[in-house]
């Protein structure tokens, strides 16, 4: 197996292994905080930071951490950066902190983080590990944004807080309530599954003879 280039590592998380639409990981924040586009971006960026920073540290310490205590070490490292983000968001904006609520602290329980630390960062040098984590984080952010903007447009008639349809728009309130998260996520999963289905079919037609 040839080592993938750094750029491929980065792109992996955004498209081919998108944590939300392909790996279906980290569903708790995905459903909970995506009521508006701005919340989605903030949550995504917070997760990206934790992911990149913890993967960097895990990768740096990878030869020093014995197998038996690796999970404990990873969790301590991840929890550290979650705490860092928690303080940082409080320092940036208390309104945002209130809006994201407990979900900032719950980043620690997001399976993308431990998954990346265990499956990738622990086996790779710092640079590719960080790039891969960064790509995963951005993929996660884009996924959240895709869900968040649809929910905000339908549920509040706004995007990034800007009114789109004027005062006569009757908001589809259920979209910003918990059920709306499931509806929109399911919608996007269908879209992505259809994409994959089409491309598999096309590949089969094209490469049928070769394989």
């Amino acid at each position, binding site marked *: 197996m040839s080592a993938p280039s750094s750029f491929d590592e980065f792109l992996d998380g955004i498209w081919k292994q998108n944590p939300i639409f392909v790996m279906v990981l980290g569903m708790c924040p995905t459903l909970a905080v995506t*009521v508006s586009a701005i919340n989605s971006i903030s949550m995504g960026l917070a997760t990206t930071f934790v992911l990149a920073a913890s993967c960097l*540290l895990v990768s740096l*310490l990878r030869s*020093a*951490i*014995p*197998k*038996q*205590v690796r999970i*404990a*070490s990873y969790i*301590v*490292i991840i*929890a*550290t*950066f979650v*705490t*860092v983000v928690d*303080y*940082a968001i*409080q*320092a940036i*904006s*208390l*309104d945002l902190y*209130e809006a994201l609520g407990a979900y900032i602290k719950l980043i620690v329980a997001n399976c993308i983080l431990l998954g990346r630390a265990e499956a990738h960062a622990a086996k790779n040098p710092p640079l590719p590990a960080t790039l891969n984590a960064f790509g995963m984080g951005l993929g996660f952010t884009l996924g959240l944004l895709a869900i968040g903007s649809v929910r905000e447009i339908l*549920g*509040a008639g706004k995007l990034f807080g800007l009114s789109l349809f004027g005062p006569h728009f009757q*908001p589809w*309130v259920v979209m*910003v*309530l918990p059920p709306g998260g499931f509806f929109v996520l399911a919608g996007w999963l269908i879209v992505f599954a259809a994409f994959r289905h089409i491309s598999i079919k096309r590949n089969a037609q094209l490469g049928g003879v070769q394989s």
Partner: protein
Amino acid sequence: MSDKPVTITPSSAMVRTLGLVSVICGIIIVGVYQLTLPSVNANKKLALERQVFKVIPSAKKVVTYFATPTGIVLAEGQDQPPAQAMTFYAVYDESNKLAGIAAEASSAGYADQVRVLYGYDVDKKAITGIGVVSMRETPGIGDKILTDEDFLRNFTALDVSLSADMQSLANAVKTVKHGTKTNPWQIDAIAGATVTSKAVGRGINESAQTLMPRLVPHIDKLRNPS
């Protein structure tokens, strides 16, 4: 005895690693905490002032006090609030005159605690404004307590005057069904958002029942701060 090649990691190595990881993480956390503390505190103060200015528009300066069963004390210089203390804010206007009192009320709403800040007018003996500190009520239904004009009109002069013995309110603040408000101490609920309206009323009643008897006898102390 099996002769499988087992690599045994000595316990000391594990302890050392965990210690190392903890030390690194500890340093990072403490560093960031120290770094962000000033702006976090500034943000908190700013958020509080913004809330207070909303319920008492003429506000210029906010001073935090604790109300205890025996009197009121300035919060500044206290390491921690005294037992059974209730926090309230004395608000002064441009000419350093007491513009009003602001305090927090909270009660369980439909989804979570509804926390509101209310402004108390000392001369009118009434609540003259409320603002929401935090809530998770249903968008479009419960969150009307922020925007519904009829509902907000309840808080132009909501009577919270004390009874003759100064131990409790003369009339408990109560949320009534939409359209049935007859007395100045009643809150006209929003039709369709009764649970949230009631939470606001209950919260204000609980808070005012405790705060007013402690506060009103000492109000002159606030009028002339030394």
